[in-house]
């Protein structure tokens, strides 16, 4: 693989940008691999990359039924943060955030990670108390976080509706300055390119139809491009986790819901941070192209269709205008949806399954993008060693038997 650099860019420019090599090999499936990863989203590609890079297991295939990064990786609102309440979550998401901070140079690929801060607005006394509690919990866990009073919020994000007569007045907010956004497609492409360079086969248009087992252990998968034998298999398929678990003969506590987002027409720089509000339920940032990127909620019913219902969008626009009356004449360009696997405790499931050598990484629900590097890193460790990474251990599937849930509904109450 030729590295990307300023000199490479200059050489590319001098040759009219006609000599760039493909970023990764579009591989055809081979009959057998040490590890097969099902799902070519950010988490699956990151898992393959860290298997090859950190554990020396490069005989790996990533099977993607569509194109890489075409699912939730390319459908989220690109927000990265680690301000989670409970110790287990804070440790896992902070691990991811630290990897984000070095990711562009690690992958030699610009993922456009921008630490522009994430501001969570408090609109009532409960929000204020919860926000301050969360700031204190985060500080105890060594995660950067600060409480801004109303004046602090006004200075940090002056376009917010700070009127005393607002239906949901702004009473303060929590700010994580190291949080921000990243270019989501670049994350998939960067991991794919780096993994491919280490020998990983990335196989697109390859849908898994069945999981083969023998004596309680996984032996391979049947796909739309033929059978593939595998020593170990990792399921990293987000919204379709229940479908894959069904193939392997066990059930999951997740349910799949459509989660929507939308973008406005591009405008000049207006918002230089990420603003989230649990009470009115909206999260918004501005892309480098100038579009406002606005996140909506999930539909209450389950769905595998990658589209949501209009009432959710309507609610979203109401919430946006409540916070930012300045954008009232802005037109929306497009909306889309992704299928997210929501867990009862709003925390992911990472680790082993009832089937030997079959591993599971799912349940990230509405907030998986931010965890991509950390998720891949700890899941690669789990697959390579056969035992959960210490940061992943609390997120095992058996917590739904033991009752040791990690209830992040309160800390991360909204889709994000």
């Amino acid at each position, binding site marked *: 693989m030729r590295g990307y650099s300023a000199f490479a860019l200059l050489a590319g420019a001098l040759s009219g940008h006609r000599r760039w090599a493909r970023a990764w090999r579009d591989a055809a499936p081979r009959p057998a691999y040490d590890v097969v990863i099902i799902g070519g989203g950010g988490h699956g590609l990151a898992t393959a990359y860290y298997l090859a890079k950190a554990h020396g297991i490069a005989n790996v295939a990533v099977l993607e039924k569509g194109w890489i990064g075409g699912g939730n990786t390319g459908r989220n609102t690109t927000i990265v943060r680690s301000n989670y309440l409970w110790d287990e979550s804070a440790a896992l998401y902070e691990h991811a955030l630290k990897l984000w901070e070095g990711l562009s140079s690690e992958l030699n690929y610009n993922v456009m990670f921008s630490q522009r801060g994430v501001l969570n607005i408090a609109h009532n006394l409960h929000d204020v108390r919860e926000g301050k509690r969360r700031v204190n919990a985060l500080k105890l866990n060594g995660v950067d976080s600060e409480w801004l009073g109303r004046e602090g919020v006004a200075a940090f994000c002056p376009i917010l509706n700070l009127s005393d007569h607002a239906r949901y007045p702004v009473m303060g907010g929590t700010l994580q300055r190291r949080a921000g956004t990243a270019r989501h497609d670049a994350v998939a492409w960067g991991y794919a390119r780096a993994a491919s360079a280490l020998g990983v086969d990335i196989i697109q248009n390859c849908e898994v139809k069945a999981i083969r087992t023998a004596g309680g252990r996984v032996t391979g998968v049947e796909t739309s491009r033929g059978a593939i034998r595998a020593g170990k298999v990792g399921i990293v398929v987000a919204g379709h986790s229940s479908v894959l678990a069904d193939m392997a003969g066990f059930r*999951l506590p997740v349910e799949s819901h459509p989660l929507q987002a939308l973008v406005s027409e591009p405008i000049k720089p207006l918002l230089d941070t990420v603003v989230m509000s649990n009470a009115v339920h909206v999260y918004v940032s501005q892309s480098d192209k100038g579009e406002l990127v606005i996140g909506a909620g999930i539909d209450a019913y389950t769905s595998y269709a990658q589209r949501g219902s209009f009432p959710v969008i309507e609610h979203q626009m109401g919430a946006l205008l409540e916070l930012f009356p300045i954008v009232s004449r802005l037109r929306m360009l497009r909306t889309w949806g992704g299928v997210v696997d929501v867990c009862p405790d709003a925390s992911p499931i990472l680790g082993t399954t009832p089937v030997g050598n079959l591993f599971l990484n799912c349940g990230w629900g509405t907030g998986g993008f931010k965890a991509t590097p950390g998720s891949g890193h700890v899941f690669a460790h789990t697959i390579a060693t056969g035992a959960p990474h210490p940061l992943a251990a609390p997120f095992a599937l058996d917590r739904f038997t033991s009752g040791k849930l990690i209830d992040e509904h309160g800390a991360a109450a909204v889709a994000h």
Partner: protein
Amino acid sequence: MLLIPCPHCGPRDEIEFACGGEAGRARPSDPSALSDTDWGEYLFMRRNEKGLRRERWRHSAGCGRWFVLERDTCTHALRAGR
């Protein structure tokens, strides 16, 4: 946008309804007799079907009636449940 057939009021807009989730999940008659696995199974595990699914709905902003609906989770096609 779903147009949901309420058995009492007829077809109405989805915003009038609350989705009650998977149908046919009966609470075990004696939970304390169950193993942790079985109790966890009842509390948390879901079918999460891709395709046709039976689910409970309530016309919460209308007549208040609970009923069962069959819905395809891929196409969102609806029909009254049995």
